[in-house]
C-alpha cells in the first residue's frame, strides 16, 4: 500500500523481504523486484470508517471518528454508560471484535479512562484494558513515539535526539518540550493522561443506510456474493440498532463493468434482525442468474422506520399466537418471488372469476354470501366436449343442481351471461359447469371442481 512516494503499509511477505512502512517507494521497488503497489484510497477508507462508526452505534450513542489525513484512523467509543447493559467491558470488546470481523475488518481494540489514552494504546496494539486513571502513565510510558498523532518532522527530531518511548518524552523538561515542538505535542500528552479535557465531536450516523464493498476479484456466481453481502448486513444491523429503527425493504446493488443489477428484498413488517436479513439475501441470491460478473456490491436501505416492540403477554395463549408468519412469508418470497405468496379475499362481484382477489396475507375480507361454490376454480373456464348438446367430461355429465343464472359485467366489456350447474362426471367428480346464454347454441364450460 503506497501513498505518494512512500510505502504506507505492507503485507507479511513483503515485510519478510525487508519492505518497511515509510520506506520510499523506489527503495521498496529496488528491494523486491515485482512488488505490487496499491494506491491508498482515502475516500474508501473514510467510507469504511464511517460504516464501522455507524455500526458501533449499537453499543453507545457516543461514537467519535479519529480521521487523520495521514496514518491510520480509528473509531472511539465512550462506553462507560453501556457497561451494565451489555454485561461488562469484556463482553463489549468481544462484540466489537466479532462485529468488525463479520464486516471484514481486523480491529485493534484498547480501552482506557481517556479517549486519547485508549487511542495510543490501540495504536500500539495493547490488548489488556487500562481501567484506572492512575495506571495510565505506567501503561503509556513503554509505548513507542510512533503512536503519537504528531507530524513526521516531530517524530524525526525526537528520534534524532534518542527519544524512543513516551516515557522518555514525558521525562524531558516540559517547558523545553513545548518550545521545541510547539503546543501540539504537550497538548496530546496531557489529553492522554487526563490532565486536560478532551472534548470530541460525536459522529452522527446518516439518515439512510448505504454501504459498498469492492470485491477482491470479479464474481460470476451470485451465490458467491453471500459472504460479502453478509459483511454489509452486519453493518446494517448495527446501524438499525443504533437508530432504534427497522426497515421494510432493502436493496442489494450489484455493480458490473458498466451496468448495475438491483436485488430488492422486502419484509412483511419492519424488522432489524441481521440474521434474518442474511437468510433472505441468501435465498434471493441463490436463485439469481448473473448476466455479467460483479465487481462491487452495495447495500441500501432507503427508509428507516420505527419498529413496534413486542411485549410479552403472560396471559397470551401460546396456541392462539400466530407465530412468526411474517418470517415464513419473507423467506418464501425471497426465493420464489414477491408474487408467489398471497392471501385470499372474497370480493362483492357476481362473476365467479371476479368474486375473489389475491390479497396480502392476513388481510380481512368482507363477509359475503355466495351460492354453492366449488373449492377449486379454474384460472380460465375450459370448454367442454358436447355430444348432441349435452356436456361431456370423461363421459356424459349428470346435472345435479342448477341452474344458477349469473348475468353481470356488461359495463366493463367482460359481460357474462351463464347458467351454472353442479354436475357429476362418470368418475364421480363433482364439477361446476355453465352454459353460455344469449348466444345461439351456447357452449358448455367447466369452471370449477368441488375438490
Amino acid at each position, binding site marked *: 500500500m503506497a501513498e505518494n512516494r512512500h510505502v504506507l503499509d505492507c503485507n507479511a511477505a513483503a515485510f519478510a523481504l525487508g519492505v518497511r512502512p515509510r520506506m520510499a517507494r523506489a527503495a521498496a521497488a529496488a528491494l523486491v523486484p515485482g512488488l505490487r503497489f496499491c494506491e491508498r484510497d482515502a475516500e474508501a477508507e473514510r467510507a469504511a470508517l464511517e460504516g464501522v462508526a455507524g455500526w458501533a452505534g449499537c453499543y453507545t450513542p457516543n461514537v467519535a471518528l479519529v480521521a487523520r489525513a495521514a496514518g491510520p484512523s480509528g473509531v472511539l467509543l465512550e462506553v462507560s454508560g453501556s457497561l451494565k447493559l451489555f454485561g461488562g467491558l469484556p463482553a463489549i470488546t468481544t462484540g466489537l471484535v466479532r462485529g468488525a470481523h463479520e464486516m471484514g475488518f481486523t480491529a485493534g481494540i484498547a480501552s482506557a479512562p481517556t479517549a486519547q489514552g485508549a487511542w495510543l494504546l490501540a495504536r500500539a496494539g495493547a490488548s489488556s484494558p487500562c481501567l484506572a486513571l492512575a495506571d495510565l502513565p505506567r501503561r503509556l510510558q513503554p509505548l513507542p513515539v510512533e503512536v503519537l498523532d504528531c507530524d513526521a518532522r516531530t517524530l524525526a527530531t525526537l528520534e534524532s535526539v534518542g527519544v524512543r518511548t513516551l516515557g522518555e518524552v514525558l521525562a524531558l523538561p516540559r517547558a523545553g518540550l513545548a518550545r521545541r515542538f510547539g503546543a501540539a505535542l504537550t497538548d496530546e500528552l496531557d489529553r492522554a493522561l487526563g490532565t486536560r479535557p478532551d472534548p470530541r465531536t460525536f459522529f452522527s450516523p446518516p439518515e439512510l443506510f448505504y454501504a459498498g464493498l469492492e470485491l477482491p476479484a470479479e464474481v460470476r456466481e451470485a451465490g458467491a456474493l453471500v459472504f460479502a453481502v453478509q459483511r454489509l448486513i452486519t453493518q446494517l444491523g448495527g446501524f438499525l440498532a443504533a437508530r432504534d429503527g427497522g426497515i421494510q425493504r432493502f436493496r442489494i446493488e450489484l455493480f458490473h463493468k458498466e451496468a448495475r443489477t438491483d436485488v430488492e428484498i422486502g419484509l412483511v413488517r419492519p424488522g432489524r434482525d441481521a440474521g434474518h436479513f442474511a437468510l433472505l439475501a441468501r435465498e434471493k441470491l441463490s436463485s439469481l442468474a448473473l448476466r455479467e460478473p460483479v465487481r462491487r456490491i452495495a447495500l441500501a436501505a432507503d427508509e428507516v422506520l420505527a419498529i413496534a416492540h413486542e411485549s410479552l403477554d403472560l396471559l397470551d395463549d401460546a*396456541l*392462539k*399466537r*400466530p*407465530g*412468526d*408468519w411474517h*418470517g*415464513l*412469508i419473507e*423467506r*418464501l418470497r425471497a426465493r*420464489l418471488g414477491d408474487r*408467489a*405468496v*398471497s*392471501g*385470499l379475499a*372474497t370480493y362483492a362481484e357476481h362473476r365467479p372469476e371476479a*368474486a*375473489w382477489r389475491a390479497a396480502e*396475507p*392476513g*388481510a380481512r*375480507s368482507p*363477509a*359475503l354470501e*355466495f*351460492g354453492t*361454490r*366449488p*373449492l*377449486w376454480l*379454474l384460472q380460465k373456464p375450459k370448454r367442454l366436449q358436447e355430444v*348432441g*348438446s*349435452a356436456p361431456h367430461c370423461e363421459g356424459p355429465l*349428470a*346435472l*345435479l*343442481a*342448477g*341452474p*344458477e*343464472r349469473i348475468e353481470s359485467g356488461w359495463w366493463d366489456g367482460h359481460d357474462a351471461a351463464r*347458467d351454472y*350447474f*353442479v354436475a357429476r362426471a362418470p*368418475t*364421480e*367428480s*363433482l*364439477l361446476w359447469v355453465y352454459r353460455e*346464454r344469449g348466444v345461439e*347454441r*351456447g357452449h358448455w364450460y367447466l369452471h*370449477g*371442481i*368441488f*375438490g
Partner: protein
Amino acid sequence: MHSLPAFSALSDILRHGLVWRAGEASRAELPGVPSGFAALDAELPGGGWPTGALTELLPEHAGIGEVRALGPALARLSNEGRWLAWIAPPYLPYAPALEAAGIDLARVMVVRTRSPQDALWAIEQALQSSACGAVLGWPEKASFAQLRRLQIAAEGSPALAFLFRSPLAARESSPAALRLHLQSLKGELAVRILKRRGGPLARPILLTPAPVVEPLRHPVPVTDHAMDRALPAAPAPRILPARLVHG
C-alpha cells in the same frame, strides 16, 4: 388381580410418551386434530388428523371431496389463528368456497411454485415455521428421500402436514406415517387407510364432506329449448349441512 393394574399402569406410561422405547421408530402419539368425522377419528391414531407426522392423501380423482374432507379441521385451526399454507395447489383455491366452509381467509396463504423442487422446499419451510396450523402440499413428484425429509420436518412441526399425491403413489413405499386412499362411492367419500401406526385398515370408512348438493329428483333436461326459455322458478341449489358427528 394385582398384576393387571400394574400392567395397565405401565402401558399408560408408554402411551403418554414419557418413556421412549428403543426400536420404536415412531414418537409417542400426540393428540390429533379432530377431523370432524367421528367414524374417521375413531380409526386414526391420536383420535384425529395427526400432528408431528406426514399424512399422504391419494385421491382417485379430483373433485370427490378430497379437500373438503379436511374442511372441519382447517376451519377449526384457522379460527384458532393458525395459518393454512396451500403450496403448489393444482387450481385456484376459491375464496368464496373456503369462507363458506368456515375457514378464516385472513389465515390462508397460497404459495405458487415453478418447479417440484421449489414446492418441496416451500413445504419444508412451512412445516418448520411455528405459524402454520396446517400445510397442504401438492408436489408434482417426490422421491422417497424427499418425502423422508418432509416426514422429519413434520415430526418437529406443530402443523398438520397433508401431501396430496397421485393414487399411483400407493404402490410405492413412503415414509409418511399416515396414508389414505380416497375414492368416491355412490356420492360418499370412501377412505381406505393404507398405512397408520398400528397397521392398515381393510374396510373403507365412508364420509360425506360438505357441501353436498341434494340430487334433483328430475334431472335438468339438456335441450336448447329448455335452456333458452326464461327460468322464472329456478330452484335454488339446496345445500345439505355436512353430516358431522360431534363426538
